[in-house]
């Protein structure tokens, strides 16, 4: 059951890795999130070096998202112009992120930075989602149709120049807003090894006010391209993409994603959002504990560089 990873330079149990990929892939298809926010911490808990975990998780997300993205594409669930704007921002962000990644690595602060960013983002996003989802579940239980405003009015958003119509999203906004969103997420993709769906999806719904039918498909579309660019950057810059690790995660991930897409169609959406919120908050708490409790190993060795 053991397999030696050529880039990570360690022996792992391949069944565990495939199982991990399958579990995360299921969530990926279900929620339209890449699932990297789970893959990366789980790989690190397993003992994979953080830099390898981050880079290989990005590669895995490309593969596990493509089948989901295609499934949404066939159903017309992708707003292509919106997706392209997000992706342009994402690739620019990935470039910035890889510069920051290299710099933090020389300082020896990359691991702790990865953890802090995880706790901050997952905590904030998870908390907000949890509050919203609990409200929606309560409303559904009371028998009130959860309406919610279709276009939440953001004055600063309306003030941005060069407004464009995004028909499928039902929006007339400046492309600068989704570009900036893509940029932010691109930075996170490189540093955290996440697709960023857990930020993009809520931001598209609550900040931009996109029609929910195209949110998940467009997010997956963006994730495929930005994680592919991230894989290239990591391959060249940090040389930490373990192709064997990524493929193991994929084998589980792609199958899991398909079942996730199906499960999403049978479950009530407000329940779905509650589950996702709970998972995000749980991961944030686990990572926060890791940061604040006295670590088992006080000393860390950094290789020949």
């Amino acid at each position, binding site marked *: 059951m053991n397999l030696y990873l050529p880039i990570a330079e*360690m022996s792992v149990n391949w069944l565990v890795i495939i199982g991990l990929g399958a579990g995360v892939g299921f969530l990926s298809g279900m929620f339209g999130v890449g699932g990297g926010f789970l893959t990366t911490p789980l790989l690190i808990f397993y003992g994979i070096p953080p830099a390898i975990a981050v880079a290989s998780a990005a590669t895995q997300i490309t593969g596990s998202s493509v089948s989901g993205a295609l499934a949404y594409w066939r159903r017309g669930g992708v707003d292509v112009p919106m997706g392209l704007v997000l992706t342009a921002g994402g690739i620019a962000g990935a470039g910035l992120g890889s510069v920051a990644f290299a710099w933090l690595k020389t300082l020896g*602060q990359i691991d702790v930075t990865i953890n802090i960013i995880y706790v901050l983002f997952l905590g904030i996003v998870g908390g907000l989602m949890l509050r919203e989802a609990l409200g929606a579940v309560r409303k559904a239980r009371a028998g009130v149709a959860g309406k919610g405003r279709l276009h939440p009015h953001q004055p600063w958003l309306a003030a941005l120049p060069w407004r464009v119509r995004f028909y499928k999203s039902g929006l007339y906004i400046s492309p600068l807003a989704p570009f900036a969103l893509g940029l932010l997420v691109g930075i996170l993709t490189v540093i955290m090894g996440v697709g960023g769906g857990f930020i993009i999806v809520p931001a598209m719904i609550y900040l931009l006010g996109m029609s929910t039918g195209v949110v998940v498909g467009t997010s997956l579309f963006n994730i495929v391209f930005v994680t592919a660019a991230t894989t290239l950057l990591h391959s060249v810059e940090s040389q930490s993409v373990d192709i064997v690790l990524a493929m193991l995660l994929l084998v589980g991930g792609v199958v899991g994603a398909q079942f996730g897409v199906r499960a999403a169609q049978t479950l009530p959406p407000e329940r779905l959002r509650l589950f996702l919120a709970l998972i995000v908050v749980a991961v944030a708490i686990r990572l926060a504990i890791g940061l604040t409790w006295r670590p088992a190993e006080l000393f860390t060795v950094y290789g020949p560089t």
Partner: protein
Amino acid sequence: MRPLILVLAWALCVGAAPIRLITDISQRRIDIVYTFRGAELLVFGAIQYPRGSVPDEPPGLAIVVRGPPVPITVRKKARVAGIWVNTDSVRFETAPGFYAVATSAPIRSLVDERTAAIYEIGVSNLQLSPASGNARAQTSEFEQGLVALRRRTGLYAEHEGDVGVTQNVLYRARIAIPSAVPVGDYTAEIFLIRRGKVIAHSATPISIDKSGFERWVYVFSRQYALLYGLVAVALALLAGWLAGLVVRRT
């Protein structure tokens, strides 16, 4: 056992003047392939005494297997505003990636301190060459931290009393190589020790390297980084697309 008997026969037939150590290793080359889970080296050999006069007292032996020295940085975490972050660091210029010693008796009773330091017998006697600029107390704290960390992961090991000696002539020891071992040129050194001093010494090279598919992937990722990235993306997309087709059909 056959190699041992041959070595013994040869050792008894040939009588030369100084004491010599004749050594062999079960594997001169360790290939890291996809099934690699670590390895166990059997280091064995014979002591060749002048004119075949075997002493009555058992010989003192230390067997050291070590990897190439590498410059590393050791960082220590400390609590800053409630969060554990890396603060201080010490650089070591010659920390071996792997070091294991097996001895026929406890190290303290086997060698005197000076000899142990000169021949680097025992993990506390490794010459790690810390970079100057740090306080001595801090340097030694980091040395101990490094050694303790690597002992827990099996990269540094001490097996006191684990060298087996037969009829005061033949010796053997097993050295465990963990799966996380760094690649490179290793040596197995055998020291014959009497009254705290080294009286004979032999060294045998061992090479540990990736082989087959593992080696190919590694070399590809270093020499053609961009192409490697493109292949990784293409494989990911292909696997994702194919799996999607398979699952939809079923």
